[in-house]
């Protein structure tokens, strides 16, 4: 599966915000923590606000808070705000649509279907619980 940068940044940002919905987090804080482009992340944050997953906080410090539904929103929901999931294998337009091409398309469909199901059954809450478990077992801060 090809996941574009905006989707990945959006997943990171949404999970960071959702891990503590009471806290305002700035673009700079997230960008610094993960070593990603502030400029690129700022665009992503605006998009998250537009789609109701984040709220721009006014006043001192500014930043963003989470405004989605942690129990209902899945990883796929977030990704689809930024892209249509591309196929794991890019199939060029071919002159012949014979049995071989059909079989290859079936295989690609099988892989794509599994990818979609995995992403569509992991809610933000589940991802955060799992991240927390991993941080407890490794005794490190989530996200590091």
């Amino acid at each position, binding site marked *: 599966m090809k996941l574009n940068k905006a989707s990945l940044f959006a997943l990171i940002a949404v999970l960071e915000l*959702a*891990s*503590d*919905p*009471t*806290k305002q987090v700035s673009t700079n804080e997230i960008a610094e923590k993960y070593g990603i482009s502030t400029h690129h992340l700022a665009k992503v944050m605006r998009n998250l606000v537009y789609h109701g997953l984040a709220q721009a906080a006014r006043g001192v410090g500014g930043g963003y808070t989470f405004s989605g539904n*942690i*129990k209902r929103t*899945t990883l796929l929901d977030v990704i689809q705000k930024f892209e249509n999931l591309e196929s794991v294998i890019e199939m060029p337009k071919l002159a012949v649509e014979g049995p071989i091409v059909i079989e290859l398309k079936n295989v690609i469909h099988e892989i794509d*279907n599994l990818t979609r*199901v*995995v992403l*569509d*059954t*992991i*809610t933000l*809450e*589940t991802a*955060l*619980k*799992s*991240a*927390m*478990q991993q941080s*407890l077992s490794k005794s490190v801060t*989530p996200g590091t």
Partner: protein
Amino acid sequence: MDYPGMLLHGAQQQGGKERADMDSRIVIRHAEEKDLETVIKIDAAVSIDLYGTVVDKVAYWQGIFDYFVRRIKEKRYFLVAELDREVVGFIVGEARAWEFGSPLCGWVFAVEVYPGTRTMGIGQQMFREICQRLRKTGVSTVRTMVDIDNKVTLSFYRSQGMRTGRNIEMEMQI
């Protein structure tokens, strides 16, 4: 799964007292003969909720009761959940060795909660309980299989910490 409030904070985390109140209303116990009818009703209600249709599975559930409830129950678990003394859910599983070539592990065959009582932590309590009982038999892994379109159940198992496992289910039309 209980975690410190570092992640899943504040309003997103179910309040401790609220959770405890709910937990005190739920009782998990072994299924008994008298529960068969209710199990069939819950299964039908879940089927309508998920697929919009009901298939007659009375014979199937009678067979499952025969194997898990009426016979020797060693390493076999058919648990029901009571909410305020009314059965609203069930979970079925057992510890088996060499099923599909897999060493001793726990298999959960079914978990169902009456649609009107979902999101109350009933499925979670039943799953925890069956995992505890399976662990006592020497099992360290629990497995299950779920229809690819059954997002409710897939999401539930994931929320309990399950991930795609080592076995791939395969099929063909014959």
